[in-house]
């Protein structure tokens, strides 16, 4: 994949560049501020970009605003936002209307290299990647009661909201693919969602149900 990075800390920028290069990706741009990053995206049209929320000059949410711009202007570019902390509100803004091709993860997750690369791959392919902590907040703040779900079904719902595929869910929960399929069908029936949604559209349905779509 061709990847652009926006991260103001030199240490992390270099680390990310190296990590991605070692994984066989091409880092086409590594910028330290939002403006340079947006110019680079316009010039290089990468497959995906990794953006830090807090960047100069005000160190508040420049990165997030840049990410929203990229999402709106270049729908083909996957946007993975990294942050030192995660907030449900940022997630809501990021996935509003289009929960595909975007991701929002805690910076710590970079430490689990395989998982991080997997999430980046999902985002670049038009999927989504939401941090488990965000998903937990979304579930806690859900507009609808989730009381009818069994604990197992809640787990599956959370993993779906994170943007994981059936096989990934099966692997995480150490169950077979059929069992996951069954749980998902149950969830959709219990929540009154249209059955048969697959992959990206399924995430959309779930997030919309939780009150962010």
């Amino acid at each position, binding site marked *: 994949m061709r990847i652009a990075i926006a991260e103001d800390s030199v240490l992390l920028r270099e680390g990310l560049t190296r990590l991605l290069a070692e994984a066989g990706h091409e880092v086409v741009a590594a910028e330290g501020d939002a403006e340079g990053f947006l110019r680079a995206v316009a010039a290089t049209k990468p497959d995906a970009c990794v953006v830090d929320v807090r960047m100069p000059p005000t160190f*508040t949410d420049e990165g997030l605003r840049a990410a929203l711009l990229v999402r709106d202007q270049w729908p083909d570019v996957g946007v993975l936002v990294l942050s*030192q902390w995660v*907030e449900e509100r940022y997630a809501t803004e990021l996935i509003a209307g289009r929960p595909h091709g975007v991701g929002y993860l805690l910076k710590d997750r970079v430490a*689990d290299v395989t998982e991080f690369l997997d999430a980046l791959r999902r985002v670049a392919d038009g999927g989504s990647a939401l941090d488990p902590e965000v998903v937990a907040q979304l579930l806690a703040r859900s507009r609808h009661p989730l009381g009818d779900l069994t604990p197992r079904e809640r787990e599956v719902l959370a993993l779906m909201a994170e943007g994981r595929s059936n096989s990934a869910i099966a692997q995480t929960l150490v169950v077979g693919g059929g069992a996951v399929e069954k749980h998902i069908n149950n969830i959709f029936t219990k929540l009154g969602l249209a059955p048969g949604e697959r992959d990206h559209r399924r995430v959309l349905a779930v997030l919309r149900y939780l009150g962010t779509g």
Partner: protein
Amino acid sequence: MFLIRDLLSPRTWLAFSHHLAGLVIGLVVGIAAIVCLVLGVALLPLMLIGVPVIGLTLRGAGWFAAAERARFGLFLGSRIPAWQPGVRAGYRYGLLPSWRVYKERATWGEVGYTLARLPVSILTAGATLIVWSLSLVLLTLPLYDESLPSGGAIIGNTVVRGTPAMTVSVVLGLLLLVAAPQLTRGLAAVDAAFTRWLIAPPSNLAARVTELERSRERVVDAAEAERRRIERDLHDGAQQRLVALAMELGRAKAKLADDVDAARELVDQAHAEAKAALTELRDLVRGVHPPVLTDRGLDAALSGLAARCPVPVQVHVDVPVRPKPAVEAVAYFVVAEALTNVAKHSRASQATVVVEGHGFPGSLNVVISDDGIGGADQRGAGLTGLADRVAGVDGKLHVESPSGGPTIISVVLPCG
């Protein structure tokens, strides 16, 4: 010039009218007050009649004081501060004074003022009238001195006549005329000061200074305690983990050459250690100041807070204009502490947070309620800490937590 200016100045004549009006008003109101008081005291054996009469008299003195504030403002432009609403003791049924009414200095100040109006006005109006008329008499004496029946004004046993005496009279009259406006206005100022002493609330500056000193002390203490907490958290948490991490990496480095498996295990441990350190640092940062509060305001920050609370929390935020960062931060920490308490002590099944802020300058109202067991310790460190934080921005904290519940914490933070 200044003579004419002072003579024609509206201030002089307003003050003059003020003195005369005071005489009339003092006469009427003073007599009414005396009659009412005597009547009230005389009827005291008949409690049902006596007490309401006294109550009415006391209230009447209050109304009179209010009217006088207006009169002083109108005639003299002197501001006599009124009492803040809700500070004074009240009356039951509008007539029966509560016990506090009798104990308040303000009540007796007003009654005293009502009775003193007449004597004070007799002094001020009398002095004013005497000076003005004397000056006019002396000035005009040469015009009619000769035509007086006695052939001249009589002072003591002497008949005053002749040019030197007339010159002295005119000069004295002029001097008095120069002094009259000053005296009129000076007496008005004295009157205003006297009135202020009796019916204005005591300057609460002293009380305010004491309160501020106390709250500043507590805020400083709280900040110091907070710094110690941060230092301790950093020292016990992230710092120890980083030490362990460095140690494990060092051991892994040493093992790399001969025992790759052991080295891999150590690297795994180090990896886990590093991630735990990150989590701890993140929680610590959020406890110091949540970045989302700065970026997106109370609604977003409180949503996040509610989402992390193990008890289900409903959040309603209606704040059209963002308040000052200091006020936002206090509101946030009040809710954070309250929700921590809800989770730890209340055994509640749900909680509600309502934040409203309408009209600036106005106030931000924060109410946190839960359906738990109540009995919150108002003197506990948590709640007094909150009260101090709230006092730091001049706000008010109110805790209602009867044992058996529910608990309602409400905070009013002025923003302006």
